[in-house]
């Protein structure tokens, strides 16, 4: 074969070869783990992150701020949608505002739309005072009657926190046009938190009933201009907002699917702010010193154990063996490439609820094997099924759980369902699972609400998890805790009750962070990782 022929024939082959190699290399590529930060490299904080020194800067009026949300809210009705940053809470807070707001610096709830909220000594009666002259965007007054009516609408429908409301609030009565008095069924220390969430988002009478035909009419800083499902949600500033017209002309929400897509768009400047919780992206943006508002959410990544009769988890030895078999650090390294934070403790070291005096269930495979053997000796076959949704992280988590549990003698099957709705059906509605990947989301601002719903024997979200009188007692103590010290004490008892009953598996909290660009100012943090744009501006 002469030289020319060789060139002629090898050229096209080279194209195919290069393409094939590119495909293979891309497909087989992996993250460079030398860049992976070690645990604790970032100081995970609950509150503002990055530099926020805006002192002396004069707010600029006008412009549009584009925020990328995690998932598009199916409804903008607080009676339908959970008021949390990941589910549409930021959008709803822009339309309705919230009566109270969590101040992450002071670690207390402060008035936002409300003027004040006072509790009596034993926290059985709370008095809400409203600001004068506040109007909904349709011009009707936001007075005590409107607040009570909106909250009745919330409590009487199948709203996300209706059970918590109905379980604690005896009645709500307007004392005068600007005052509402709430009587509790028992001492309730977390009522201010409830008013910073769904029940604190007051909808106007013009919004109509829950369901088809609902119109989002609130007294927040923005009004809904246009909703293009799957594309964007556009809001414009409300001229009649109680605290003056917001600086921004428009607020735009987009939903970009994968978190990496939002990250790329954020770094290219197509969006000015966005919500992130994938540990690798959060670590990257924290590492770059990007400004934002971070909420640390305990038991964000977990597996619930079904302790119902006939399930493997009905045996407390099996539940304990499951937790002892799992090293949270393995999950963090294998599933999240070493990003994020891992701990076998419900509230780890970063938390204001950290209780170092209470021991936790540290990984102990020998003890796990012994407990499992004892259960097997009593007839358990060692089989257990791990149920999760079919996402990349869930698949990885399933594989890790399978590997570590099988190393101590379990026989694990992984079952993946297509959607989160399918997972909820199987786990929460039918309770047809052994182990199920889930997030319980205990928040720094208010650990009580979700803990009561998921761990108390009368909670509405226990889904077959084990409960105990000790856990119930600790939760009831937390319910009426008058101060942080008492709350911390109760949470220590909850950790102890957890160690004894192991209702779920503990491995990772997540940081939920809304990051924003350097030229964005004035964003305020709120509850449930939400942020408020009433004073936001773009420089």
């Amino acid at each position, binding site marked *: 074969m002469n030289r020319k022929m060789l060139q*002629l*024939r090898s*050229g*096209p*082959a080279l*194209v*195919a070869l290069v*393409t*094939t190699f*590119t*495909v293979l290399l*891309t*497909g087989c590529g992996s993250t460079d783990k030398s860049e992976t930060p070690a645990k604790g490299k970032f100081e995970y904080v609950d509150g503002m992150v990055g530099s926020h020194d805006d002192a002396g800067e004069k707010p600029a009026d006008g412009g549009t701020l584009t925020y990328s949300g995690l998932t598009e809210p*199916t*409804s*903008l*009705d607080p009676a*339908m*949608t*959970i008021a949390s940053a990941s589910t549409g809470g930021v959008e709803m807070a822009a339309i309705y505002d919230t009566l109270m707001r969590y101040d992450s610096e002071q670690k207390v709830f402060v008035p936002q739309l409300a003027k004040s909220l006072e509790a009596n000594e034993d926290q059985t009666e709370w008095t809400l005072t409203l600001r004068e002259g506040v109007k909904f965007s349709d011009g009707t007054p936001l007075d005590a009657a409107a607040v009570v009516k909106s909250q009745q609408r919330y409590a009487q429908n*199948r709203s*996300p926190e209706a*059970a918590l409301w109905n379980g604690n609030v005896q009645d709500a009565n307007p004392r005068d046009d600007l005052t509402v008095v709430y009587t509790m069924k028992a001492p309730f220390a977390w009522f201010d938190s409830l008013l910073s969430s769904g029940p604190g988002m007051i909808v106007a009478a013009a919004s109509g009933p829950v*369901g*088809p*035909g*609902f119109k989002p009419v609130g007294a927040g800083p923005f009004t809904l201009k246009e*909703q*293009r*499902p*799957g*594309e964007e949600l556009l809001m414009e500033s409300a001229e009649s907002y109680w605290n003056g017209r917001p600086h921004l002309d428009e607020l735009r929400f*987009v*939903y*970009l*699917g*994968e978190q990496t*897509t*939002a990250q*790329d*768009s954020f770094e*290219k400047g*197509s969006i000015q702010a966005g919500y992130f919780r994938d540990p690798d992206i959060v670590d990257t943006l924290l590492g770059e010193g990007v400004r934002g508002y971070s909420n640390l959410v305990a038991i964000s990544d977990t597996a619930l154990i079904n302790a119902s009769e006939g399930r493997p988890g009905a045996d407390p030895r099996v539940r304990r063996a499951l937790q002892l078999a799992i090293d949270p650090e393995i999950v963090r390294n294998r599933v999240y490439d070493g990003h994020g934070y891992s701990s076998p403790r419900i509230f780890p070291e970063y938390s204001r609820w950290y209780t170092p005096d209470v021991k936790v269930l540290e990984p102990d495979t020998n003890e796990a094997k012994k407990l499992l053997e004892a259960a097997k000796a009593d007839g358990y076959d060692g089989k257990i099924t791990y149920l999760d949704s079919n996402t990349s992280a869930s698949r990885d988590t399933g594989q890790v759980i399978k590997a570590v549990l099988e190393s101590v003698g379990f026989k694990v099957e992984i079952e993946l*369902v*297509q*959607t989160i*709705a*399918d997972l*909820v*059906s199987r786990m*929460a*509605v039918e309770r047809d699972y052994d182990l199920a990947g889930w997030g319980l989301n205990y928040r720094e601002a208010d650990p009580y609400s979700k803990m009561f*719903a998921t761990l108390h024997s009368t909670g*509405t*979200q226990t889904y077959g998890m084990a409960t105990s009188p000790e856990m119930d007692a600790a939760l009831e103590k937390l319910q009426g805790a008058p101060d942080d010290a008492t709350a911390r004490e109760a949470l220590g008892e909850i950790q102890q009750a957890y160690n004894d009953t192991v209702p779920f598996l503990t491995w990772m909290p997540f940081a939920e962070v809304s990051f924003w660009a350097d030229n964005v100012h004035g964003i305020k943090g709120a509850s449930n990782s939400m942020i408020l744009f009433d004073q936001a501006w773009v420089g």
Partner: protein
Amino acid sequence: MTNQSVKDDAGALGSASAAPSLRARRRAGAWRRTRRLFVRVAELMAVLFLVSLGTFALLSLIDTDPAVTILGEGHTQADYEAVREDLGLNDPLLERYADWLGSAAHGDLGASIVPPYHDVLDRIMAALPVSVELALLGVGMALLFSIPLAMWSAYHAGGRIDRWISAGTFSVLSVPSFLAGLLLIWLLSNGLGWFPRAEWSRLDEGLGANLYHAFLPALTIALAETALLTRVLRSDLITTLQEDYILAARAKGMGTVHIMFSDALRPSSFSAVTILGISLGRLIGSTVIVEYLFALPGMGTLVVGAARTGDYVTVQGAVLVIALIYVATNALIDLSYGYLDPRVRRSHA
């Protein structure tokens, strides 16, 4: 009576005893065309009926419970059951299908059964332009790239450039669209920063912004289509270039460009046009991966999103519209054969 009338009458009289007159032939032709049209419409209706029935049956197999989508977690069994009852999900499947079909036959595709309860037709009319534009741009780009490539390749069949083009098209065909999209994003968006990473800009926001946002996803679609069209067109062109009339054209001294475009391309386009039609119809409903990669609000996103929430009414309506476009596009492609090759027209006549 005019001379023409006399001629026609004579022709008519003659036709009774001998060959059919021109008018009779025209009538017969019109009748055949009308009958073909009726048959075509009947086929279309049958296809749509079968597609809607099949979709409904398949959707009934999906476990996703709209009641869970509506209520979320933390409610009692009775709450979920009450929502299912309200939505009519406990009714027999055929009864639900008949209800839906009755409304659809009157042009009413209903409203989404999950929040925000939008009208299905409104959702489709918002998503369809995105998918149609992407498909048209993708196929347009593919034509723009593939025709010169195929011509060059066919004209120099077996030569160096032909082999380069062949290797290139085979390589592109072997790359799945999600990977092609990711590579384009990596290179043209994240790397060179020439195009946005995601989002959509509608035509009413300006043509420039629209094309700026549509270019990368359309290019992702175009790559695979280009490769396929180039392969098919090249093959047909090589056959056509061996025909006697091409030899005659060359002998008359006609230029290569004239021969390729005027004499060779049209009769060589049968397979390519067929593929084009199938692609166009297919792309409108199946650019899910591209829409997902670029976060675009097209029909794929609409159908997948609705299926994930158990919103069977939206899925059903969207699939019906996609099927309608698919069938209509292919009917138009069938008609185009007559233009491409007069022999087809004559055979029908």
